[in-house]
């Protein structure tokens, strides 16, 4: 019997385990399906991680190792090569490992399974089904972990960060990246990546465009790219053909929650993650969730922060601090697509409440407004907001406790 089982040994799981440990939990196990800790960070060899957390610019593996090192001299147990097959609401965890199929019991669980990439099917790109169509992350794994190239003439659909990073990486490795194609009128990735991954290498970025056809019987031989209208429908007559042997898809990430769903935990269709309270607890008391399994983050630093909060909360739960009872829901206001947390325990003792959310359009000078049925509770000015950049506000909890429900909205700042 463990006090805490952490599902996933990526950045979220590592941070949650470490903060639970430093908050007094000693019998902790991390269950990791890969043969090493670190999760997806191991293939993210580019730099830019850790500026917030460590005030340094680290590569993915370096960032992961900071946490792995912190766990070294602790009592936290790590089971590698261990796949969690099933979690029951009674907190029994069935695991598969070459040394045995096992069941683990824990007082508390942290779900930190991360996310996966959206695929060709999710966006229904018509055409044939040749080889040479990869998600950007799969191509990244081939290149950075196994030294294998996805191809030599590449078109990238989607301007998510992994796609941008791969544009640069493949270019440096000798491939020709012909274009980066983005359906939306704005990029889905961080601006710095547009600059240093595309502009630096003269790779054109086609905004409001999409891939309308995939060609090739065996290996990919080409794709057609067309401009889209405001309803994101291809405009006939705007087609451009690219001869390429590789199409990388960087068209979004989806939280991995098969275990969460199977355990009967309440899910939020907006995030594809679990509904969580301010302490990252899910609808099953004692089961917490954090990181990209809850909502997709832009920066690993924020994953670590959120997961540390989940670890602290799990430690509190194990020590006997139970919540439950009434909750105050957070609601999407105008231009807000989701919030995390989705609910606030009325009996929370936290002084401050962190709220994360995304907006659905690009804003210049703007304002985030927190309100309830009685009016505005708080507001925050922002010089710039975009869907690609997660927003974070901190609200004193006592301001929220009297509300029936809390609405977060975004608006253009009114001109003086």
């Amino acid at each position, binding site marked *: 019997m463990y006090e805490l089982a952490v599902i996933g040994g990526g950045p979220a799981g590592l941070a949650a385990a470490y903060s639970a440990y430093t908050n007094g939990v000693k019998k902790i196990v991390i269950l990791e399906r890969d043969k090493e800790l670190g999760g997806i960070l191991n293939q993210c060899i580019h730099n830019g991680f850790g500026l917030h957390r460590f005030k340094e610019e680290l590569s993915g593996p370096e960032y992961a190792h900071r946490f792995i090192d912190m766990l070294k001299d602790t009592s936290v147990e790590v089971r590698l090569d261990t*796949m969690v097959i099933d979690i029951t609401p009674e907190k029994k965890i069935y695991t598969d490992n070459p040394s045995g*199929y096992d069941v683990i019991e824990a007082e508390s669980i942290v779900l930190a399974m991360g996310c996966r990439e959206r*695929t060709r099917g999710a966006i229904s790109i018509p055409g*044939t089904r040749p080889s040479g169509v990869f998600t950007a992350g799969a191509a990244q794994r081939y290149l950075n972990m196994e030294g294998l190239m996805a191809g030599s003439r590449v078109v990238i659909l989607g301007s998510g960060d992994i796609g941008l990073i791969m544009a640069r990486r493949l270019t440096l490795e000798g491939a020709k990246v012909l274009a980066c194609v983005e359906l939306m009128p704005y990029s889905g990735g961080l601006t710095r990546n547009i600059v240093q991954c595309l502009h630096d290498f003269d790779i054109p970025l086609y905004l409001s465009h999409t891939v309308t*056809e995939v*060609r090739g019987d065996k290996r990919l031989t080409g794709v057609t790219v067309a401009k889209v209208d405001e309803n994101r429908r291809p405009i006939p007559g705007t087609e451009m053909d690219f001869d390429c042997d590789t199409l990388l898809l960087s068209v979004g990430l989806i939280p*991995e929650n098969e275990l969460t769903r199977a355990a009967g935990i309440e899910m939020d269709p907006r995030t594809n993650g679990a509904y969580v309270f301010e302490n990252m607890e899910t609808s099953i008391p004692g089961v917490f969730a954090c990181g990209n399994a809850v909502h997709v983050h832009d920066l690993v630093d924020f994953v670590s922060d959120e997961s540390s909060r989940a670890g602290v909360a799990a430690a509190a739960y194990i020590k006997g601090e139970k919540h439950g009872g009434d909750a105050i829901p957070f609601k999407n206001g105008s231009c807000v697509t989701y919030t995390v947390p989705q609910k606030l325990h009325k009996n929370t003792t936290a002084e401050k409440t962190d709220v994360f959310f995304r907006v659905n359009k690009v804003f210049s000078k703007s304002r985030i407004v927190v309100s309830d049925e009685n009016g505005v509770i708080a507001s925050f000015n922002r010089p710039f907001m975009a869907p690609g950049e997660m927003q974070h506000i901190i609200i004193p909890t006592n301001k929220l406790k009297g509300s029936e429900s809390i609405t977060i909205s975004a608006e253009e700042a009114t001109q003086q």
Partner: protein
Amino acid sequence: MYDVSIIGCGIIGSAIAYELSKYKLSTVIIEKENDVAMGATRANSAIIHAGYDPLPGTLMAKLNVRGNALCKELCEKLAVPYAQIGSLVLAFSDEEVDTLNELYDRGVKNGVPGMKILSYDEAKAIEPNIADNVKAALYAPSAGIVNPWEFALALAETAVRNGTEIMFNSPVESVNKKDGYYEIVCGDKTVTSKYVVNAAGVGALAIRDMVLPHSYDSLPSKGEYYLLDKSEGDRVSHVIFQCPTASGKGVLIAPTVHGNLIVGPNSVSCEEGDTSTSADDLAFVRNSALKSVPSTNFRANIRNFAGVRPNTSSNDYVIDCDDGFFEAAAIKSPGLASAPAIAEYVVDMMKQNGVELIEKDSFIDTRKHVRFKELSHEEREKIVKEDPLFGRVICRCETVTEGEIVEAIKAPITPYTVDGIKRRCGAGLGRCQSGFCGPRVLEILSRELGLPPEKIEKDKTGSYIVKKRRT
């Protein structure tokens, strides 16, 4: 010199090979692609039709109904995923209700068991997500769903266990009638056999034309599909059809044996190998399906694909023989359901036409397929103890272990491709579409086959996945 060469290793070639492998014959299957079931068999609705569609008196009617029963038996025997879930044909107007009655009468004449015409309320009670404007439905309890690909593999594999040989990557260039035997040329290979069975699917007419005078035309027709995530898998619990029209049975919605939801097909005439999809066609499929089941969530799509039907100018299957050249051609829908009955019929025809068939003393007629996901906790514990490879999950979405993948590689018909593993084990079939497991499957294939990673292909010959890094 073989006794029999079978051209084509789709469901028909596989079923005939299976049937023939019961007898003391030397048989070779000649397949142009690099794996079994690479044509129509791998891209269709995966339905075992009940048999009320074909006109009474046709070969199609007789073989469909007989095949339906045989499929069930064979799938159980050979560990092929199959479920007899029944089907509903929906009628949305009075004219369509008339069509249902007509289908019912045909079904009765064809010998389809247990059919019923259901009222809207009765239909809605067993299938709550169908549209509110449904007037009535024809229920046929004997319809089923199957993994068509594994069905063909299981039949071919059992044939191989019983001595049949298979030549892959062998497109037939000519079939030459010699004195008392046939010579089949495929590239630099030449096969001779006393008898030839043409089961080349969409390519069957081209083979026939090498031997016999041209007598009908090939009219291949493409069907496009959506495959939705398991989150949609219980949207319906029967195969949901609309009333058939001149162009076919129309767009259906059905659960798959893997727990997904399949939606399709349309029908568009096409070139022989054209399995591309188009945005307009897919939109048609989507809109047609929404008419039957308005709540179908197409945002859960994980894959689109197309298959080519071996349609011809003949309204019925073409099963005949001429001087040792046997043919099972124009096997359009319901060819999958008919396959085992077609095989019986062809073998009987061979017997009638002088092929000496002596039963083998021992015929292996069982097959095992371990699916870790389907085992109980106790069974899982046991199998991991016996073979640690079952303790390593490679495909997260479908819970497929390394043990299953290695077993598939070591089976009588070796897969050389990542998609070959997908079709055998289900790795990569799920919602991430092999994003995570693709690289690991490639690594396992490379290791087990002793081939460098750049030689491992995705699907057809020539579909390489990665290149060596430039140094």
